[in-house]
């Protein structure tokens, strides 16, 4: 779970029509951002930032909390706290506490069930004599699942300190607010030169990180990815997509070791995550396949991708048989072939497997 610092502004929790609340909130965010660029607007009046790096830099968690409280209290009354995960951190902020790492469960134990924001569950549990998060957390998870379903399990995990955040929509995170705050904030230029304090984060990187975070707010955390190169035989294996994460510096090492059986460069510009079904026929219209010896059964004449009209094959190379993992049960025998159509204009990498053709990549 992330170590989070939460700034809670009690007077800015409810939005007003004129937008003054949101503007003050953005000033708070701006002030905190002077010290750490990775801040997230959770909802009006509450923002969080991953605290591990900054705490190390500013000489401890208490020191960081004090510092952030100092810089923001001039704008509006604030409560600052720190704990593991967003849920506990917000409660910690309300008490102005720093909950030690791993102490979430003990910290949450005395709170009433109501703080989970699930009145039905709270009422039901209260009738069963379970009044605090501690009581709730001590119930075995399997029983919770049986009696209260998936929602109950999410609350149970939060109460027992295993999960940091309640699932939407009952949770704290109002993504629309976060998005609007981010949009408004992006209109405000970042404090220049203040973000390069640790981790070598430059202005450009911080600005990009904010944009990428905004897209994650919009589409979900897995929506933004970066790519890393790695060794591999076919084009799909040579890259790995990694969910982008503001708190991680990307690993920049690339592998240039030769891979036997690799398709010669240049690499295709489009690699289809889901291969496209294709048909390859000879002059007579009979399907072309790859024999057990890795040879074509006929000279390819026409190609159709995804049942689109036939195009004339003007050149091809291969097939290059691959016999991957021949030692295991997941053995794959296949062959690859480069096929060019439309008077040498369009090139594709085809894969033959179990008597069928697929477009694995397009030399876009």
């Amino acid at each position, binding site marked *: 779970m992330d170590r989070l610092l939460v700034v809670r502004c009690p007077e800015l929790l409810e939005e007003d029509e004129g937008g003054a609340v949101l503007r003050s909130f953005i000033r708070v965010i701006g002030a905190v951002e002077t010290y750490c660029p990775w801040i997230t607007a959770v909802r009006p009046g509450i923002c969080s930032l991953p605290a591990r790096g900054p705490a190390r830099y500013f000489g401890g968690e208490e020191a960081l909390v004090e510092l952030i409280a100092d810089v923001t209290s001039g704008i509006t009354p604030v409560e600052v706290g720190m704990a593991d995960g967003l849920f506990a951190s917000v409660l910690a902020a309300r008490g102005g506490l720093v909950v030690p790492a791993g102490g979430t469960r003990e910290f949450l134990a005395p709170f009433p069930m109501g703080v989970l924001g699930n009145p039905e569950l709270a009422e039901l549990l209260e009738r069963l004599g379970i009044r605090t998060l501690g009581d709730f957390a001590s119930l075995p998870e399997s029983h919770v699942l049986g009696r209260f379903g998936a929602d109950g399990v999410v609350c149970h995990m939060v109460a027992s300190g295993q999960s940091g955040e309640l699932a939407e929509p009952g949770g704290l995170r109002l993504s629309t607010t976060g998005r609007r705050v981010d949009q408004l904030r992006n209109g405000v230029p970042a404090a220049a030169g203040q973000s390069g304090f640790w981790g070598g984060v430059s202005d450009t990187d911080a600005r990009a990180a904010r944009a990428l975070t905004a*897209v994650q707010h919009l589409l979900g955390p897995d*929506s933004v990815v970066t790519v890393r190169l790695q060794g591999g035989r076919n084009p799909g294996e040579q*890259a790995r997509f990694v969910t982008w994460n503001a708190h991680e510096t990307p690993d920049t090492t690339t592998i240039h070791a030769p891979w036997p059986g690799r398709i010669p460069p240049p690499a295709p510009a489009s690699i289809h995550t889901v291969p496209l079904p294709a048909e390859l026929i000879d002059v007579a219209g009979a399907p072309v396949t790859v024999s057990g010896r890795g040879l074509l059964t006929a000279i390819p004449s026409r190609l159709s991708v995804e049942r689109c009209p036939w195009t004339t094959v003007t*050149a091809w190379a291969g097939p290059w048989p691959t016999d991957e993992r021949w030692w295991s049960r997941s053995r794959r025998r296949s062959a690859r072939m480069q096929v060019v159509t439309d008077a040498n*204009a369009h090139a594709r990498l085809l894969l033959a497997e179990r008597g069928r053709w697929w477009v694995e990549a397009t030399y876009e």
Partner: protein
Amino acid sequence: MFVSLASPRAGSALTREMSRESLVILAERTRPISSSQTRLLPVAAPLADLFPDRSLRRGSTIVVTGTGTVGREGTTGGGTVSGEISLALALLAQASQAGSWCAAIGLPDVGAVASHGLGVDLVRFALVPRPGPVWAEAAAAMIDGTDLVVLCPPFPPRPAMARRLIARAKERRAVLIVVPGRAGWPECPDMRLTIDAIHWDGIGSGEGYLRRRRMTVTATGRRSAARPVQQHLWLPSPTGSIEGTASTGGIMDAESTAAESTAAISTAPGRPR
């Protein structure tokens, strides 16, 4: 805008002191708040001649189309095939190496090895492979934070939406590169790059392999770029990068002189200035 310097009188220590002071103020005033203060972004040498400034102009929108793109519905499967994505990636390369962040929206299949080969720094290359119906909002957010955005709209954009994104790029000083594909792009961009005369080399009837692709890129733009400019390219070259073809003055590198580059441009005939 600038601080007027005291008239330089050589040898006078006082003047020199004053000049130095003014220079400090001047430097302070012109200090970039972020790198977005520069007007231009670098572009790979073989592509430079296509642009009036020999660079990408911040705030501009570039539409990249292949010849077969218009009205191609259902004629070839599997999305774009005419080199639009390669060209869009090649446009990013130089700026990406210079420290700019790049984003690609709506390109689920972009090849990492090819991007790397063309010179895109993968550390500063963010992908939103499947933006879905909120693609325009995602693009707007990316325009806010990155210098170059490649956008392949998954759905046909409404004119108002396209206009808003163009305006956003202008305001945020980003370069918006649109690969319209089948969805189309209803607005007139600052610059249109059209790919033509594609031909793959090195492959025969069951022999050789794909070595390089020759293509002709025609740039048409507005105002200073209204005259179409054509460039013959190897994209990709045998090493996966981008090169000018021999017929347009050989492989050009950053050191190629202006005279060579001028000789390398063959302009399309017919259009009066």
